[in-house]
């Protein structure tokens, strides 16, 4: 090869590499970082990106150079030089990629081990996934439950997953961590929040009709604010039935699908709960029985215009909670008239 052609090839490589680098740097590829684990994941991401840009630039430069220099007219009948191979070159392009992927593997392994380590002083949160809602409960805080994941800033938390029906998957892009919740199996995930804010919790495993709706939020709060919230929730649980019902309504994710003015809920996937008396009349049942049955066995009567099989059964709710929820819904419906 002449020196001129080597220079041209290198020039093309720099051109493609530079273009790819601009694409990598100028476009905000990753969402804001809100956990220690995401920080480490991002390091692997950029480490891999560096290698990927180099490989891409090489391949693109060789193709572009070949098309510029070695194209012939359609009526050209000549053949190229009969080069069958070159052992040295073949060894190089076997060994170099092997070294590169080994480097990525090592970096990934180190990060994986670090990201799986919850340390000694972590907080536990139990996560229950069902079609199509998340429930978070805090065994260290008197088992209080919440439909949003609230976490104190800077405290490592270990999430323990349980799925009641099918497979779901928990993902918060800003945390970078993801884990499936699998029926009959315990899985867990470690997160150390590093930034206050409200982030989306997304189900990423197709779980049926309402999969796209299976969303809630993760709220990272200052430790003091978190403690205050815990107190408030614990007091609410001891409150009179109306408020207890409201807590059950909030902690089981009802608001993600239903509208209920009393709870500031605005979901539209399921029937409007402010119209419960009218629905009960259509179903031809007494209001209280109708509400109780609709919670425990939602498919017994489905309001026309809404899909069957979308709402999961909540028959597993403890009896007092179920009753307080029923009373709360009846009372709220009357209040809104």
């Amino acid at each position, binding site marked *: 090869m002449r020196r001129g052609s080597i220079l041209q090839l290198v020039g093309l490589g720099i051109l493609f590499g530079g273009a790819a680098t601009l694409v990598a740097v100028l*476009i905000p*590829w*990753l*969402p804001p970082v809100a956990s220690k684990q995401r920080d480490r*994941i991002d390091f*692997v*991401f950029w480490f*891999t990106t560096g290698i*990927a840009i180099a*490989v*891409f630039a090489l*391949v693109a430069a*060789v*193709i572009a150079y*070949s*098309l510029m220099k*070695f*194209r012939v007219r359609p009526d*050209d009948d000549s053949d*190229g*030089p*009969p*080069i*069958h*191979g070159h052992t040295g070159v*073949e060894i190089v392009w076997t060994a170099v*990629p092997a070294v590169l*992927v*080994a480097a*990525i*593997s090592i*970096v*990934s*392994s180190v990060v994986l081990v670090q*990201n*799986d380590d919850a340390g000694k002083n972590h907080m536990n949160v139990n996560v229950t996934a069902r079609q199509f809602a998340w429930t978070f409960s805090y065994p260290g805080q008197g088992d209080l439950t919440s439909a949003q994941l609230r976490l104190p800033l800077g405290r490592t938390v270990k999430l323990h997953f349980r799925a009641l029906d*099918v*497979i779901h*998957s928990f*993902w918060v*892009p800003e945390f*970078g*961590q*993801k*884990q*499936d919740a*699998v*029926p*009959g*199996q315990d899985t867990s995930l470690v997160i150390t929040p590093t930034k206050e804010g409200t982030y*989306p919790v*997304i189900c*990423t495993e*197709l*779980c*049926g*009709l*309402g*999969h796209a709706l299976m969303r809630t939020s993760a709220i990272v709060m200052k430790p003091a604010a978190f403690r205050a919230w815990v107190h408030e929730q614990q007091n609410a649980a001891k409150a009179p039935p109306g408020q207890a019902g409201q807590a059950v309504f909030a902690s089981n994710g009802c608001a993600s699908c239903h509208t209920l003015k009393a709870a500031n809920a605005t979901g539209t996937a399921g029937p409007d709960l402010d119209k419960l008396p009218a629905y009960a009349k259509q179903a031809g049942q007494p209001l209280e029985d109708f509400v109780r049955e609709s919670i425990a066995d939602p498919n017994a009567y489905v309001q026309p215009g809404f*899909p069957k099989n979308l709402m999961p059964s909540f028959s597993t709710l403890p009896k007092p909670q179920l009753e307080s929820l029923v009373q709360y819904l009846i009372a709220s419906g009357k209040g809104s008239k």
Partner: protein
Amino acid sequence: MSTSTIEPQKQLALSPKAKGPFLRAGWLRAAWMMCLFWWIGCGIVLIFRAWAGWDPLWDWSVITVVATLTAAPIGFLAGIGAFDYWVRYASGAPTVPEDHSTHGGKTWKDYFRPNTDHKVIGVQYLVTTIFFFVAAGLLAMLFRAELARPGMQFVDNQTFNGLVSVHAALMIFLFVIPAFAGLGNYVIPLMIGAPDMAFPRLNALSYWLLPIAGTMMLLSFLVPGGAFATGWTSYAPLATDQPLGQVFFNMGVQWAGASSIMTALNFLVTIITMRAPGMTFWRMPLLVWANFTTSLLVVIATPFIAGSQFFVMFDRIMHTNFFDAAEGGYVLGYQHIFWFYSHPAVYIMMLPGFGIASEVISTMARKPIFGYRLMALSLMAILVLGFSVWAHHMFVAGVAPWLRIPMMVTSMIIAVPTGIKVFSWLATIWEGRIHFNTPMLFALGFVSMFVIGGLSGIYLAAVPIDIHVSDTYFVVAHIHYVLFGGSLFTIFAGIYYWFPKMTGRMFDERLGKLHFWMTFVGFNVTFFPMHWLGTQGMPRRVSDYAPRFGDWNMVISIASFFLGASIVVFLYNMIVSWARGPKAGPNPWRSRTLEWQVSSPPPYFNFDELPQVVGNPYEYGVPDARHAVFNGDRTVELEEVNT
């Protein structure tokens, strides 16, 4: 459609005696036998349900599986005549000595009945798979319309999930896998100097299973509850309690899988036993190597997906508990079995493409393949490694934590043989005499797009990154760069490359180039932004998404319609050129491999004279080198070789 001199035979049916229209093998018999077998299936179900005391007696979920999706298709196959010879042979009825009356495409009607000519079967395969490709592409455009804006516009959730699932299932099981089988079917026997495949009747049968599988998947839209809606991965336990459409996937996969296995067995036996004299393994074209390794993958892996789908169906209709955790089932077991097939399936969908790229690149660059033996060995390396990486689809699924790092390492190592292939193609075009025509455009388009798909694969193999982007649009982007930029580009390269051989006519080069550039631009605008959607937080398989992703989804949807339009150019070019294109001659690309040394289209039995292989297939630029000689000039050439 053919230029052979053999006189058309009077009798074309598989059965020896001409019978009345109702008894002669054909579409009429297929129609009534399908009905008959459906009722036989119902009868079996009713007898057993009555005997076992099940209530109700008539249960559509069982009837559908046994009568509609199993018995009726068998009736169809029997009626169309796919079993006639075997039934006569097995029952001791007189069989006529093979008169090859079912061999060869003499009229267009021969393409609509079981035919034992691998060239007819190859064309049947390709036309059928392109039909399902267009159908699956239209489904994709429907759900892209829904996804153009956030919120729900055109379809409900169940329909959306159905569209996504049927799109993927058709593309994978009815397009990419069988399209490669179709190209291989046409080309492999020619390339190795064989008169046909080893088992021509099995070959005919393997084709006829395909329309059954595809029709099944499309018809699932018509059953109550809609099409199967659990993605092409169809994870249990979701799949066990879905509406009835789900079993159309479970059974469709069985029919397509059986077809795949039959063809793979046929390829293996053909390649091992029917090579022309002198065609050693190290003289085989790389497409033959690729189909050999692919067939090994198919034969070993496909029974696993068959098993996984049967288990899901048993859970539904036989009350087994393979995947019911409450009854002691093992939910994750489904994914292990499924991916033990479906990861090798990725290579089933890619290795033949590697082979096609090697043929096209070497011929169009007028140079020998750089590092031929290492190219063949890297195929074998991918075959072996392909079975050791399946859990990389399950890094967030709850697999045993210790399994993740070993499976990451093996997944990473696959990049090495794949890299060898890419670098060898680059070295092959280096200093070549590159003819930048349509097949070559698609082959080089494949190399560049597949490199992007391979690099995003490295991200997904790295466990920490995978944990972040698993089940997001990043994965959607990756699989489309691999399966569209990879497999589909090579399928197009192969179709354009062998179109003159199959039809005897040349396609329109300008339309071919237009098709390529529309595809290339449309493809990249459609799929590249999906990487960003995924890393930023958009999960896959959702009908609705965060409003901030709206603009890019609109861009993607518009690009996908543009991509759809590019197919119109392709179809127009193929149909018009097939009917009216200029005559191509036997070897328009001046290729060295055997299929180009016979007329276009080839004679009924491929070679009027037996080829004697005397050298390697890619000896471009080597003075006086020959790949093969034919009987006529054999003595002279053999002398030359010996000196």
